[in-house]
């Protein structure tokens, strides 16, 4: 149990996908303009990441690995995630229209994002077991949501700041992201797996 807790904290904070591994920056800057949108996006990424990781784990361990087809890992995962997101969109649209209105637009964006595919690949490459994969996926998702929400709150505050003209918009956001990443680097070494 302690091992999983450590893994969760490590994947959410010390090895944060966005701020220490620099994955998923497109969403990180695109959807961090307001807090509500970033919360929705964070939840959507976490859930898609978890479900697709489990599916990818099953496919890798029961189909690709036994047949010796590890080369097909990348293309299979891409197909899996894209298909899954489509399916998820339909199901949510039908059964939870309120949730769809909140998430719907983000779901399609996630289908082709590198953060979502990074977790299954990490799991496959280090031959993680089912539970480990599951915890890693949830941890990475929560870490991504955390980074997104932090960034969105900062950028909302930023609107009241007197930013020099040449840095307005994306410029100051990049600087901010750099500082945020720097502070997350302070956690590195606290947990070693």
């Amino acid at each position, binding site marked *: 149990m302690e091992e999983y807790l450590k893994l969760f904290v490590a994947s959410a904070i010390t090895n944060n996908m966005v701020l220490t591994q620099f994955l998923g920056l497109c969403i990180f800057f695109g959807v961090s303009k307001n807090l509500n949108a970033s919360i929705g996006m964070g939840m959507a990424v976490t859930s898609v990441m978890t479900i697709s990781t489990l599916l990818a784990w099953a496919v890798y361990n029961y189909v690709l690995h036994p047949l010796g087809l590890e080369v097909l890992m990348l293309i299979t995962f891409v197909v899996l995630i894209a*298909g899954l997101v489509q399916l998820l969109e339909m199901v949510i649209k*039908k059964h939870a229209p309120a949730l769809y209105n909140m998430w719907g637009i983000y779901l399609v964006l996630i289908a082709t994002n590198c953060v979502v595919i990074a977790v299954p690949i990490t799991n496959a490459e280090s031959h993680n077991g089912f539970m480990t994969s599951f915890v890693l996926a949830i941890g990475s998702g929560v870490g991504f949501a955390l980074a997104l929400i932090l960034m969105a709150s900062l950028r909302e505050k930023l609107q009241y700041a007197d930013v020099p003209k040449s840095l307005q918009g994306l410029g100051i956001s990049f600087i901010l992201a750099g500082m945020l990443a720097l502070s997350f680097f302070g956690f590195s070494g606290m947990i070693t797996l």
Partner: protein
Amino acid sequence: MSTPILILIVLTSLGLLFGFLLAYSNKKFSIEVNPLIHIVEDVLPKGQCGACGFAGCMAYAEAVVLNPDVAPNLCTPGKDAVAKLVAELTGKAAAPMEPQIAQVQCAGTHDKAKKSYAYSGVEDCVAANLLFGGPKSCKYGCLGLGTCVKSCPFDAMVMSPDGLPIIDPEKCTSCGKCVSVCPKQVISLMPIGARVRVNCNSKDKGAVAKKACSVACIGCSLCMRQCPYEAIQMVNNLAIVDAKICEEKCSDALCLSKCPTKAIRPFVTGIVPGTENEESMAIACASCAK
């Protein structure tokens, strides 16, 4: 079994599996969409310009059908005809809309507006504007690099050889796309029935404006004093005409007579203001560009 065949089998079965799964769930999880939405969408012009305030024609169709508070006449490109049809389809009362046209508030052609430097960068007004506000000495005027022409979803704009865009009154739907892309905010929408217009956007003081461009509004307020109906106001050294008062009350346009730089002129469409005598040339040019 050899690897290529295995790859073929695995990928094919994966593709088929997902294909059938998606096709099946598309049927199973399909939602009844109000068919009226598609009918309304077919009526709309599909320029996807967003002038209605929604994300596109489909979004507007959905909103106007489902939400009783959304007015049927928000589609500016569609004008009255579309507003009427949409109102009929949705059972809402149609409010008449006044036809408008986009107009460039600048007459600073190559020979009239001075340049402070020669620009040879990207052919785009936004890019040029980043470089000290563009090559023209006047910091308010049209840059003439045609960002608006490229943005027009209805092909209603053509760049004239004089360096100002010409707007085709037949094609302009007053969607406001050009208004929003112009980095100088020199394009505005005005009622098609307007009588006069001020072809200048310069908020500089008279002497500065005149130095940069020979047809600038110098803010002398002579036109304002001529107008008996108080339709003209001076705001930031620039004459602003209230087209509504003009249209309703005025018949002889006294304001035109005294302007020292001829910045205020009769409202004409389809040509660059100040090049009226070259009218035929401008039209010929517009037609070859098509």
